[in-house]
């Protein structure tokens, strides 16, 4: 399923739900009414988007820090010849949630999610020891809230 498979109502629905679902007994009916579609149609669309892999999660978005966990974005400058090995080493840490290769001298960017804030520093020390590379730790200091619009 790609953007081309989504019709106007799918897109409106995705954009609307990124703002959150109202906490009422029939939340889907409430959103369906806002969008001018039937509740059954909305549920069918969500089911299809979920099966198509477009939605990775639908439901409560947890706040890792308030749950007592740690979260940060970190980067490494990995020598090109060593990239595959370092990728394996880094991804072997269960605290690594995502790992992206990016075009910059800092070419490996990953998110660490840990059960406690203290575990962040320990994990970073572990990654530095295992890779022999310094980790650039860049935890979020302030979040600016966006409305996630799908580009059309």
């Amino acid at each position: 399923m790609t953007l081309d498979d989504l019709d106007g109502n799918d897109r409106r629905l995705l954009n609307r739900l990124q703002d959150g679902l109202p906490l009422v007994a029939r939340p889907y009916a409430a959103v369906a009414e806002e969008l001018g579609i039937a509740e059954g149609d909305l549920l069918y669309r969500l089911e299809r988007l979920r099966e198509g892999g477009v939605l990775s999660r639908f439901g409560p978005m947890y706040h890792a820090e308030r749950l007592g966990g740690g979260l940060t974005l970190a980067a490494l400058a990995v020598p090109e010849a060593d990239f595959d090995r370092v990728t394996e080493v880094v991804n072997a840490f269960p605290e690594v949630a995502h790992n992206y290769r990016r075009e910059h001298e800092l070419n490996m960017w990953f998110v660490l999610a840990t059960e406690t804030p203290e575990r962040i520093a320990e994990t970073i020390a572990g990654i530095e020891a295992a890779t022999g590379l310094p980790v650039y730790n860049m935890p979020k200091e302030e979040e600016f809230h966006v409305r996630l619009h799908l580009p059309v």
Partner: protein
Amino acid sequence: MNSATPFSPETSRPSRESEAHRRLRALLEQGLPLTPRPWQALAEQTGLCEQEVMASVRRWQAEGMIKRLGLVVRHRRLGLQANAMVVWDVPDDEVTPLGRRLARETAVTLCYRRPRRLPDWPYNLFCMIHGARRERVLLELAAIIERLDLAALEHRVLFSTHAYRQCGGRYVREGAA
């Protein structure tokens, strides 16, 4: 259920309510049921009533444990392959107002202030722009720079070339296709 060990709070039998709430949290982590009355469906699975389920979620939201009830879109699955992290070197006292203005741009999907790591990394404002193709993302960025009058700020665009994600000890490479 295990029988209670009297002197250890760790293993003592939880009350019916806290056990039910724990179950509710575990169920919620799997996502909200796609049925007309999702809270009622969760109530039936936890032994709470619909009102109690909604009250718990309301409390968790008020406490900040749940940010919101919503969804996560997998941009790569939608063919939005070009995922650019745009980073800016902004004078410290201008970060907050600029972050707010960037977050209002429809092309911007995430926006955070993060610490500089001098001398290698002078950038303290990060935003993500997703798009079907790089050219499109770069056009969006050029339009933002023009609109918000940011030409004087140093910035870098870091496109991602691969996403590696961990998956039960195995690595799935996404978006390589």
